[in-house]
């Protein structure tokens, strides 16, 4: 979709890259990645398998290097073993000894703590050695898979050791995961902090939803087709529901989650990005700047409802039976204080102040221990102003909807009314469906593969920039302040349900209700 083919790292034209040559894969140039926090879940389940899959697809350069940095007392071989196990367990492409062998020759491990000057000097020496021996060309990406509290010290070390400084035509990039701060002020501080060490074009913020095929398909659907654009506005759209639900609880992530909550964890990043892509105006081209310009524009037009309290809802999951297992409530989980005021469910109503969307509410909701794992965007259309059918015949008729299923079962559905077979003219809703089919095929790259490759290629379109992050916090901050003032006693909802009663009340007040995804 967002083709990186028309953008080269250097302005010189490569005679072997004809723009008409769509087969030609865009292989990353000589490079390597350093992962801080390499012992964490993300590295093991997503990053290492993604790197292997990229190598298996032939998209990594020969001589690619992966450096792990952690406190463990590991040798290079121990580290290779860890990566090997992670890859065997989580990679999406079949395992190839050859690919593995060549890839693993570029693995290195540096032991150290973040405040350890010597360790970072060793890291610098290791990278120089990799340049010499593996040919990584001085191009290194630093992946921060670490808690935000550790950012300042690691950044300081990267600056002190000179690792953030590229020489000549080299590049040095930093990759950071959400959360991008805790609120607007901390986000700005974080941006400033990172910005002191890496210029903005070298900063890549991962919102892995943007790497998903279906999310990119949203742009294709809207802008490649004539069919949808005429109805994509407040003349025809009644409201939009954006949902991200998980059926699991906090589990082992309690330490991270408490104090953050569902709204900061999901709404601030994934759901606002999805909203931006759904609502934005058509970009002039799909070049990164044009795309981001539209996203910033739409995010700056988002407004909160005047009556904030009735336009938001939150809750915590209680204990009980969910899908054949007995589960603990949030306040009973390990590591969670029984007086915690962190929400595991958050819903918020947003409006957009522009001609296209005035009067169309966007309802965003997310939660843990909900009915099932699903992410989707449902554009719900207005009902026809006049129905020539009798009331009873159209009682079962709902609203037309266009639903983009982000995960699982990626695809697009349109719901519309159709005549029920039989002697009378009864109308009922049916679905017209387009599905990507199998979601675990090796053919379609996983989000992290796509994003890591784009980091190595220096292709920024799929990464939110600092202004987007700040605008997202500007939207969420008032909600968080409201909730902080409202106290720490939250409504409970049964596990496996679709949220607390206040969420339904929020919709009912507007004469609407939540879709069952």
């Amino acid at each position, binding site marked *: 979709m967002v083709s990186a083919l028309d953008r080269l790292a250097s302005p010189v034209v490569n005679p072997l890259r004809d723009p*008409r040559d769509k087969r030609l*894969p865009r292989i990353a140039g000589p490079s390597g990645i350093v992962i801080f926090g390499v012992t964490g879940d993300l590295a093991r389940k997503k990053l290492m398998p993604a790197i292997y899959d990229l190598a298996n697809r032939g998209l990594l350069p020969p001589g690619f290097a992966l450096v792990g940095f952690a406190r463990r007392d590991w040798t290079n071989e121990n580290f290779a073993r860890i990566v090997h196990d992670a890859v065997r367990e989580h990679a999406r492409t079949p395992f190839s000894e*050859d690919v593995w062998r*060549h890839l693993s020759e570029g693995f290195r491990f540096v032991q150290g703590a973040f405040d350890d000057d010597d360790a970072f000097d060793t890291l610098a020496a290791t990278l120089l050695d990799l340049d010499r021996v*593996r040919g990584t060309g001085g191009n290194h990406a630093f992946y921060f898979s670490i808690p935000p509290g550790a950012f300042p010290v690691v950044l300081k070390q990267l600056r002190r050791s000179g690792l953030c400084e590229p020489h000549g035509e080299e590049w040095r990039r930093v990759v950071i995961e959400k959360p991008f701060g805790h609120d607007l002020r901390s986000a700005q501080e974080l941006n400033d902090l990172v910005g002191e060490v890496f210029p903005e074009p070298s900063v890549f913020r991962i919102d892995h939803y943007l790497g998903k095929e279906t999310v990119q398909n949203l742009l294709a659907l809207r802008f490649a087709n004539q069919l949808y654009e005429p109805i994509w506005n407040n003349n025809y759209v009644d409201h939009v529901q954006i949902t991200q639900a998980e059926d699991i609880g906090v589990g082992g992530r309690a330490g991270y989650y408490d104090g953050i909550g569902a709204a900061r964890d999901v709404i601030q990043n994934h759901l606002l990005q999805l909203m931006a892509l759904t609502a934005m105006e058509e970009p002039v081209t799909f070049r990164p700047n044009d795309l981001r310009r539209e996203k910033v524009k739409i995010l700056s037009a988002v407004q909160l409802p005047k009556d904030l309290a009735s336009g938001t809802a939150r809750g915590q999951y209680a204990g009980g039976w969910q899908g054949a297992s007995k589960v603990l409530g949030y306040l009973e989980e390990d590591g969670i204080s029984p007086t915690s005021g962190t929400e595991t469910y958050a819903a918020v109503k947003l409006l957009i102040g522009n001609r296209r969307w005035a009067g169309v509410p966007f309802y965003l909701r997310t939660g843990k221990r909900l009915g099932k794992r699903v992410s989707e965007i449902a554009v719900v259309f207005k009902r026809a102003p006049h129905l020539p059918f009798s009331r009873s015949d159209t009682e079962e008729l709902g609203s037309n909807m266009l639903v983009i299923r982000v995960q699982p079962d990626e695809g697009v559905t349109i719901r519309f009314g159709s005549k029920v077979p039989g002697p009378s003219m009864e109308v009922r809703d049916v679905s017209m469906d387009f*599905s990507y089919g199998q979601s675990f095929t090796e053919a379609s790259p996983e989000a992290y593969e796509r994003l890591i490759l784009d980091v190595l290629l220096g292709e920024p379109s799929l990464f939110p920039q600092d202004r987007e992050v700040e605008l997202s916090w500007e939207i969420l901050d008032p909600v968080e302040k409201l909730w902080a003032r409202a106290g720490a006693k939250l409504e409970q909802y049964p596990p496996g349900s679709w949220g607390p009663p206040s969420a339904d009340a929020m919709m009912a007040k507007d004469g609407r209700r939540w879709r069952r995804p």
Partner: protein
Amino acid sequence: MIIDLPSTTSSKINRAMLDLREQGGSIALSRVLTLVIVTEDGQSEDPIAAANAASFEHPCRVIVVARGARRASPRMDAQIRVGGDAGASEVIVLRLYGSLVDHGASVVTPLLLADSPVVVWWPGEAPEVPADDPIGILGDRRITDANSAKRPIAQLAKRRETYRPGDTDIAWTRITRWRGLLAATLDQPPHEKVTEVTVAGSADSPSTDLLAAWLAWALRCPAKRVKAPAKSGPGVHSVVLARRGGNIALVRPEGVTAELTMANQPERLISLPRRTLRECLAEELRRLDADDIYADVLLKGLPMVNAGSSAKGATPARGARTAKAPAAKAPASAARSRTTRGKRSADTPAEPAAPTTRRRRRAEPEPVAPATSDGAVEPAAAAARS
């Protein structure tokens, strides 16, 4: 699920497909294209397996036209495979016998999916002019495989003569990774001009010819296509891009791992195995418009490749330079090929080849001694033959 329909007609097959959908519930997978595979009875399982594998990326309806015995009474046996037996697609295998063998188009037409593009693939022997073939006419895209012909290089020359937009050949698909790696080397500084290109591969590898042709056409510099050392196995062996500041060499000595060497950089290894059929097919199905680059390389690039005329063929490791032979003629008296298996070369350059020694090769029919004395390709001569 497999459903056999012996002695059947296309409309009965259509009826069966509809029944399947109604009884089994919609499989809810949209089909993005129809893939028609034209092959001989008994050679269809490998292509079907490749199509099933590719179907995860491109859910499609696969119609296999398997030509059986001509000396039988006209009959069509069909087999429908859906669900687990067919990947993410539905497969309809049509076995044709008797005079029906030549009328594949008439049985295929009713089974083509509405609106969707049609891709026709000949995994084995392909017609003279795919675009004029009765089934080929139905296709928006036509895929052939020069490698599976008895005389691959000659086949490639024929593809060149009969090219129409929408044609591609899997010999071209096989080198995509090579091309990607080579393009990536030129992405990096120093951005010096390439002065000469040498591509080595096995004598009957049309992929090697196309690789040399692409480089010649894209880089606008002299390009040599030479024969690789005999033990290097099939396919492309090496590419050397000569530059003033130092050569770029990508060498794959044994068909599995490639070595990339550039000036001022350490030698780097990368896995570069020969591509499987399923990978090639998945790539082919990704774009359904005409491949302009393939057209340019086939029509304009191939004639730009000079014939190398050294006795054994240059190997980049030794940096041997091959002497240039005049493009349109290889002198009959030029040095004989001294391959380790003692093939004798053909005398007239115009004749693409007379098969001489039978060489044991993987999945290839008769091998061929190439046109010129040292084994380099002579596309201009081959074209001149017609």
